């Protein structure tokens, strides 16, 4: 409150009622400084030699003394330093928040990419298991043994062709999956 009164008077002298009204406007809301709060403080500032009171036209005008102006300047510098420190901290916090959100985003990306790759490996792995390869090898050698001695008769040939086509179609369907 002291500093505020000093700063209000920094622009020029004011009388009591003006001071109260300006305080109310600056602070806003429901705040209404009472004469009982403001005048005693003005008198205290007067006693400290920072403010001078003069009477004119039935009113009391308050103004800063040279000492009062110096006090205001000194405190103003302190306030400015405090403000730049606060702003430096606020900026650092914003920078930290940015890194945090982006780090979190990067972790999410890596996690989902890894999950996707694991799923893909499982899909791709299935048809090429060793067991199926073995069965295919057994089938080929049995087939070679059966067919080798001579050309099968026409009926047998037709039946064999149908069986092979059916097996291939089934194989294609099984291996196609979601991605062919």
């Amino acid at each position, binding site marked *: 409150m002291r500093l505020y009164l000093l700063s209000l008077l920094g622009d020029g002298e004011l009388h009591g009622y003006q001071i109260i009204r300006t305080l109310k406007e600056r602070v806003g809301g429901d705040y209404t400084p009472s004469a009982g709060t403001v005048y005693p403080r003005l008198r205290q500032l007067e006693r400290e030699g920072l403010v001078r009171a003069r009477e004119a036209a039935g009113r009391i005008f308050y103004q800063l003394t040279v000492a009062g102006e110096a006090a205001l300047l000194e405190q103003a510098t302190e306030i400015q330093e405090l403000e730049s420190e606060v702003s430096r901290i606020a900026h650092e916090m*914003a920078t930290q928040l940015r890194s945090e959100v982006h780090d979190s985003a990067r972790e999410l990306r890596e996690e989902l990419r890894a999950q996707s790759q694991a799923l893909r490996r499982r899909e791709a792995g299935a048809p090429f298991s060793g067991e199926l390869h073995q069965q295919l090898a057994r089938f080929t050698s049995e087939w070679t043994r059966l067919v080798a001695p001579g050309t099968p008769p026409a009926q047998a040939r037709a039946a064999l062709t149908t069986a092979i086509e059916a097996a291939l179609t089934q194989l294609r369907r099984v291996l196609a999956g979601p*991605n062919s």
Partner: protein
Amino acid sequence: MAEWEIESPETIQFEESPSDLLVHLVGGDLNVKASDGPATLEIRQIVGPMVRVRLEGGKLEVRQEHPSFWRTDTTRVSASVTLSVPPGCRVQIDTVSASVLAEGLNAELALKTVSGEATLESLRGPVTAATVSGAVASRGQSGKFRGETVSGGVTLDAFGGSSVRLQTVSGEVVADLKQADPDSSAEVETVSGAVYLRLAASPSQKVRVESISGHLTSAFPALRAESGPGSRTLKGLLGEGRGKVKVSTVSGSVSLLAEASD
């Protein structure tokens, strides 16, 4: 009506509370955060032309623009700006390369940047973000999100809102939708950008994923894969199908993942 022309670092506390904020910057960085205290503007650094600030009828405008019509060399016009506004303030941001952080806002945010990186934290209102190459990372968002980029990646972390619409050309899309509303809809379109969506462990969505040549991967056996001439699809119903997931790419791979239960 109040106006300021700022040429050096300064902090302003506004007497009037803004209901709308418009920020127009070229380079540098911008932080906009929601706060219950008085609205403030703080400029830590200015390179180039002065920053003009104007507050009238609840509309606050902060601008730093190129001095000439022919815009070249964005490094010579930049400002480091932090704004505190009421949570219900509507915000519109336009930058060329300035990065943007927006936090805690409850009302609309419309963000446009060419190459600035966008970081969004705990936003509750509807958000539209459009970038060319800037990456967008949004965490803890509720409300609707609409994002468009050309090559910037879009990452939605802990998204708890009701709708997501994303469009990219080559930008990668990564979205964790497990906390989204059960009725929420997610629509994603890319050309070559890969898409990774994580759904809830017990999802409830109508799903339709299609791609011309991109690889489709899904952790959900209930979805049916189909391959036709010139395209492949993955579709079906998860749970009660209350929400919607629709993804379409040309060559971008698509992965629909479940919450890790291992």
